[in-house]
Every structure is written in C-alpha cells, then in structure tokens.
C-alpha cells in the first residue's frame, strides 16, 4: 500500500475516511490536530475574545443545511490551544444522544470530573494544596520540604502514596481529616467532597476514578471540585461540549426543561470560574426557544446574542482560494518527501475549487471527496489529480453526476 502512495508523494491517504472529530484518537486526521484557521478567520478572533472575557456560555452554531460545517473542528482547535496553557483547565466532552451515556447536564459534570482526573488536574490541585496546607500547620509543618520532594517524584497519582517513607507521617487518617477541614474552611467546598478528595488521594489514589463514576449529585460535586481547582491556583476552566445538539434531539418537553434547568445550575456554579462552550444545531436552538421555561432557564443567563454566539459560515471556503490552505493543511502532514514544490500535490487547484463549490462549502463533504479522490487515483495509478480525472470518475468520487454549472461557477471564484 505504501508503495502505491509513493506515486502520489504521500505516505498514506491524508484525508479521513469518516470526517468527524474524535478528540482522544491518536489519528491526527480526526483528533483536531490538523486545522486551518483561515476558513473561519473572523470567527476565530471573535471566539478568542469571548474566551478571554470568560463568557459564561458560548454557543457555536452551524449555519448549514446539514452537519459537517466545522463546529467540532473549530472548538477542537481552541481546546488544544488552551490545553497548552498549564494554568488553565481545558476539557473536551463528547455529548451523546438520548441513547448514549453523556446526554444530560448531570452526566456532563461526571465526564468533566473524570477528565479532570484523567488529565491530572485533580492530582495537581491535590499535591499543591496539601503542600500549602502542611506549610504552616503546627503538627505537619516540619515535613513541608518532604512533601515537596514526594510530589516532585509523583507528578501523577501512584497506586499508593508512600507518605510514611517520605514524611514519617503514619496516621494518614488524621492528616486527611485535618486537610479536609482546612479545604472546607478555605475554599468553601462541601465536607463530603473534601473527604474523598483528601482521603482517597492520600490512601488509594487509583480509586479516584471509581469514586467519580458513582451516581451522586454530580452538579453539586462539580461545584465543589471547581472550588478546589480554583483555590489551587488554576486561572479558569473551559469546558467544550461537543455535539451538545445530540442531547436535545427528539426529546420531550419534560426532558428539555430538565436539561435546561441542569444547564442553568451548571452556569450558576460556574460563575466566574468556568466557561461552557457548546456546539448547537438550529433545531436544538429552537427546541430551547420554543419552550418558554427552557428558554428562560438558558437565555436569562446566556442570551443568544452576539456576546454569546458564534455562527460559522464554512461556505467562505469557496472564496479567495481558501480551499487551498484547507487541503494543504492535511497534505503537508503526509508527504513522503520534504521537497514537494507544490503545496497541493497531487491535486490541481481547480479540482479543489470545484470540490468546494460542489459541496456548498460543507467541510465534511470536501474531506470525503478528497479521500475518495486519493483512493480512486491509487486504483488507477494516476499521479496527477486534475479536472479531467475528476470528470471521468465523478460518480465514484462524489456519488453524484458532474455539474457543468458548478464547474463554471468554481472557475469564477
């Protein structure tokens, strides 16, 4: 297979077979690592501003008839950008429809907590706060430097924390209790959460995931953990709720109200600490707006105005040769040699412009078309993908007949 790709100067097909975002996947074609910011240049700037302003909730809306308009890729890019700042928490949650397990605010909170644990944010908070706690404590202050040494060795949760070996403290229960009380006092979190946060991490750090998965009042737990995280010095939390529209698809009036009431609670708890970013389809926006109670729940805290909403217009890709940058952002990761002169080899520019026009700017359709182009070219051992190739294999590539009208239109842009 690799030998065949050499004909196209590629190591593999640079385009995803199923263009969708799976943030935790290792494949950079779908995990949001490849992103061309030029398509949504203005929207990116506006979005960055809203993030900087710590807006409580930002709606990222698609404008297209069907899905695949780049909402997920858009937020995945910002998730990765923010993730690189160690003082800020960036969490990406993949929401599901009603048949899945991440389809309501309570479950969003559970996902948030689990991801905070998985991404080590909780452990970082714990170690930092425990060091802070012992520093001025009359009974444990002597071990301050030992704690620092211990946590420099254990930057992630171990199976068991060798507390006694490092600090000579044998009674972890007493330490946990004192630490719990200090936490409650200092950051205002509930005793229940402070209890397991201190005792589990001191005694059985690996059990934290199990604890967080338990069905309890997750929104309250979210509130408490958020207080702990902020107290430990994190500057802000960004929660990206990808495909939130799925959770609102074909749901009853009752579920819509419950959903929005839950979101409202999350927003109230997040006040000044966290920003929620959710992708939303016109139908789910209407589901909220058509229900007076649901509308009040959400819009009284986060109106659907320009201060809370980003609208994406991917059809801009058909203008000013923006398609070239978009396609080359994928190709550049998969060239077999660095000495490729043309940034869009093996494609002819007009093929890209035609594809952009044919898909009406739908990014998913463009990527799918490109993927098929490469595969058909491989089958036919073609090294240059030009307009004639596309015309001759149109049905196979795009699953529709060639359109002369669109072809002529694409030449004008």
């Amino acid at each position, binding site marked *: 297979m690799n030998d065949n790709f050499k004909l196209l100067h590629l190591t593999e097909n640079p385009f995803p077979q199923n263009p969708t975002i799976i943030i935790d996947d290792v494949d950079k074609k779908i995990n949001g690592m490849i992103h061309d910011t030029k398509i949504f240049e203005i929207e990116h700037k506006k979005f960055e501003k809203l993030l900087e302003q710590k807006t409580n909730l930002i709606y990222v*809306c*698609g*404008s*297209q*008839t*069907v899905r695949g308009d780049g909402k997920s890729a858009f937020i995945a890019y910002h998730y990765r950008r923010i993730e690189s700042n160690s003082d800020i928490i960036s969490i990406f949650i993949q929401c599901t429809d009603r048949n899945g397990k991440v389809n309501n605010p309570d479950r969003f909170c559970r996902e948030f907590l689990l991801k905070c644990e998985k991404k080590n944010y909780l452990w970082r908070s714990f170690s930092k706060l425990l060091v802070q706690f012992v520093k001025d404590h009359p009974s444990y202050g002597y071990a301050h430097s030992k704690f620092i040494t211990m946590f420099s060795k254990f930057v992630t949760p171990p199976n068991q924390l060798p507390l006694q070996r490092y600090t000579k403290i044998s009674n972890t229960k007493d330490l946990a209790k004192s630490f719990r009380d200090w936490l409650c006092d200092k950051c205002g979190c509930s005793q229940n959460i402070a209890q397991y946060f201190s005792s589990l991490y001191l005694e059985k750090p690996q059990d934290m995931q199990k604890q967080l998965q338990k069905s309890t009042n997750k929104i309250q737990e979210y509130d408490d953990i958020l207080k702990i995280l902020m107290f430990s010095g994190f500057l802000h939390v960004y929660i990206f709720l990808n495909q939130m529209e799925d959770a609102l*698809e*074909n*749901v*009853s*009036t009752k579920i*819509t109200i419950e959903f929005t009431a839950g979101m409202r609670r999350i927003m109230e708890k997040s006040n000044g600490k966290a920003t929620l970013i959710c992708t939303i*389809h*016109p*139908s789910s*926006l*209407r*589901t909220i*707006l*058509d*229900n007076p109670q649901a509308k009040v729940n959400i819009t009284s805290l986060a*109106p*659907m*105005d*320009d201060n809370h*909403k980003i*609208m994406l*217009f991917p059809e801009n890709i058909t203008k000013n040769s923006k398609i070239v940058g978009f396609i080359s952002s994928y190709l550049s990761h998969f060239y077999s040699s660095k000495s490729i002169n043309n940034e869009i080899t093996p494609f002819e520019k007009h093929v890209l412009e035609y594809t952009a026009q044919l898909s*009406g700017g739908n990014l998913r359709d463009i990527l799918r078309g490109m993927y098929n182009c490469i595969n058909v070219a491989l089958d036919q051992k073609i090294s240059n993908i030009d307009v004639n190739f596309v015309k001759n294999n149109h049905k196979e590539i795009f699953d529709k007949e060639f359109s002369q009208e669109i072809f002529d239109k694409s030449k004008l842009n």
Partner: protein
Amino acid sequence: MIKQSTRLPRFSRFEYVGDLLNEVSQGSDWNAIEQRLTMRKKEFERLKFLATGKGKRVLSKSGKSKDLTNDCIAMAVKTELITKNGSYQITKNGQNLLNICNESGIYEIDFKIECLQSYFIFYPFVLDILFALSKKENAEINFPDTRHVKHLESIEIENIFGIKTDVVSMMVVRDIFNQCGLVNWKSIKVNDLPFWKIFLTCKISTKNENKKNLKVEKNNLTYYITPNEPNSGSFETSFWNKYMELSENSSDIPVYYWDLRIRVCEELRISDYIYDIYFKNILKSKNFRVTCAAGAIPSGNTQGNLLKNLPPRKDDEFWMVYVSVSKREIS
C-alpha cells in the same frame, strides 16, 4: 332556474385530480383509482415526515380512501373532466388538463390554476367567495375555526360572505385558493377563540395589465385576477423586519421557515408561492446573509404538520426548515 350547488367535494389538493385523470386515461377502474389516491395521501404524509419529522400514519387497508375517491370522481364528472358510463372515460377537457399536468408538473401552479378554472365554471359560488373577500375591509376576514366545536351553520356563513355554504366547503375553498396563490391564511386567536385570518393575495380588476393572470367572467364582465408581487426592496424590508420580530431582535437565530413566511405574506399580501420565489432570490442577496438548515421540529410543535407549511427544498435536497438571517457587513 336550477339552484347552484354550494357544497364542494371534500378534498382540496389538486394533485388528486391529476392522479385521477392519469388513472382514467389508462382505463383504470374504481379500485385502481382508490389505490392511486391512497398512495398520494401517503406521499403527502411522507413528505411532511421527511421535512419535519412529523406526519400522520395512513393505513393501507382498502377502503380508507373511499370518500376521497368518490369525491374526486364526483368532482371530475361534474366539471366534465371524465364521464361515467359503466367505466370511466376521460373527456377532451380532461385530456387537456392532464396534458398541462404532465407538461408543467403536478405540483406546479399552472396546473393548479387550470383546475381552479374548472371550479369557477362548475361551482360558480367559489368565484363569488373570492369577490366577497375582495370587498371586505382590507380584503381580509377572520373566519371562526370551528373544527373542535360545533360547526358554523350555513346561515352564519351567509352572514359573513353573503353566500350560503357549509363550513367544510369553506375550508376547501380557502385551501384551493391558497394553492393557486389567490389567498393566504393563518391561525389566530381573538378573545381566546380560534380563527383563520384569511386575506386576499391578488388583485381583481376589469383592466388587463398584460401580466400573467387568470381571466374570469362574472355578470357579463371580464375580470383579470393577478397575484400580488412586491418589489424586491419592499420584500427585503418586510423580510428583515419580520425576521427581527420572530428572533426577538437577534440576528442568526433560527426561526421556522413557515413562521417567517406567513408574517411577510400577511404584511405584503402575497401568497406562499410568491414568497418562495422571492426567498430563493434573497438567498443570493448582497444585503443579507440567509442560511437555512434542515432538521426535525421539536416534539410538541405541530405547526409544521400542514402541507401548507412545508418549506421548499434547497438544491432539491434538503428541506429549509430553519432560517437564520444577518445583515452582511459592507466591506
């Protein structure tokens, strides 16, 4: 003098007439006609379901379209589109109408207007209702929606329109005029009671302005009925204002296609058909960025469950259920 009938057959979609003529031209019997009309009925529900995620279930058992079939045949016989002498035969008029149907397409306005002409000739009171509406203040009327309560008596309808007919016939008239672009209507509440606000969307004149119109004879006079068409400027203004009303002054908030359409139609006194044409133009407007999205309508919302409310399709593919608008920034 024979008293003219003021009871209309109980159907209002002209597509059934096209189907009936098609079947009769092929020598079909009653059962085959019924089967065809049932298919059409199902097709309407399927379209609604595809567009909005809502539609009624049409049972496939025979006999479910018996009344519809008998009404269609009765209408076609009365309007001399077919004859019934043991078997059904298509007449010359019927064949002409079928040709128009085949040439223009069963959903197209040309075919529907031709059907309406037959109604004007063979059910003259239908034209009387149009004239009566045109004479009302603002050429509009709030007609009581009595579907869920005791129907209006014919005498009460006579008080409103000066024509004695039954309420179901009135609904049929409203719907056939609506399909032909001569009136439009919407549901409203007045003092908590449901009404249909029905308004004229055409101009009736004795002068021929050489526009595409419908020519009718009444009281030895020739009248020309011309559908209203706004200029593009007034359409854009109304379109934006009504969108802002619906979206509570926020741009890029999705609203239902039919909600926006009826508001603009009411203000400009235009038909759904004319609106759809102008809407397609506004998609390319330099002043507005109009985007459309497909998608099922939320549960509990039944507005989309009307054939009248079906939005057009974008590029013959997706139903434009949701419309979002913003003003383009001048660069």
